[in-house]
């Protein structure tokens, strides 16, 4: 889960590659744990270099 620089948003990235952006962490963890439910489409495409940025 990446806290997107310059914003208050969190980007969750599942091991399946699906991504989800939300404002608070409980929602993102719930989305991650729900895999594969709701992971079909990357509904929020992001610049790939952010993913896994440390």
């Amino acid at each position, binding site marked *: 889960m990446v*806290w997107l620089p310059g914003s208050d948003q969190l980007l969750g990235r599942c091991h399946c590659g699906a991504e989800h952006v939300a404002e608070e962490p409980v929602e993102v*963890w719930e989305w991650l744990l729900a895999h594969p439910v709701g992971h079909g489409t990357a509904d929020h495409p992001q610049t790939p270099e952010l993913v896994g940025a*440390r």
Partner: protein
Amino acid sequence: MSTIPQDQWYVAAYGREIGRELFSRTICNESILFWRTASGQVTAMSDRCVHRRFPLSQAPTRLVDDQVVCGYHGFTYGADGACVAVPGQTRVPRTARLRSYPVVEQDSFVWVFIGDPDRADATPVPRAPWLDSRDWTTVSGMEPLAARFGLLVDNLLDLSHETYLHGGYIGTPEVAGTPITTEVDDEAGVVRVARHMADAECPPFYSRSTGLTGRISRWQDIEYTPPCLYLLHSRIAPVGSVPDPDGTDPDAFHVEVVYAITPETDTSTHDFWAVARDFARDDESVSDFLAEQNRTVVLQDVEALDVLERVIAIEPPGYQELSINIDTGGLAARRMLTRLTQPVPAVS
């Protein structure tokens, strides 16, 4: 139900604490007796005599060669916990045996396995190799915490609290102000939280130990292996400096901050802390300074968490916490801990 995960390795002591004196510590609600055999092996067994449950750590119980002689009526136990002699009769009841615990001495810690001993071999003991490495210099200690271990997990997984609770020691504005990346590795059983501050104030903890003046690049990379072991890989360097492509990092100072979070009871915790460094390794004044500073920081957390425990103990059920971005690591750790407390099928 207890929230303490079973079938897990926990740090019970530093190796230096255990010698030829009987030593007792409560780990996960179990009162355990530790001692070192004449050949140097650490042993762990129940601290309650099977006869009338006299604590074996209590004088006049004593160690005679590699046997413990109970100070009340003289039941005598070997290093494996088996009773080898009872007073007044030659027959020793077959069931006269102290519960004994699997033990591993590694990385300066004594680890004990709590749960079904048959599961110990298949459960890896987490590593903190810096603590007894020749290439690092380590200071360490342990503080008692009158709070449930989950509160210390929350505390350590969210270092933004450094800015507020530890200002003037390790906290600077950038810690709370810098976004984090959180990663759950279910296969390895690790939660990782990274916070890389490219241009930050240097707190006294690092300026006085490294000699760096001015602003720094400060990286905090946490690896938590629930339930017990927490590692903070801390990298301090001049602004702009990054590790070389080959992985070496000659311009940086590295500190490995290690915590072992061991439940004593459901509402108290042994807070083991260690600080290992790869610079000024022979400078005792740096060792003294880091030990004193880190202990102070740990005690600031202890004070806060002791208060929090008292609040939680008397609050009505159903209190709703509010989580924000800084809590992503703590939430991930809680989820892993919850999974570890779920019962697993028995070994056949």
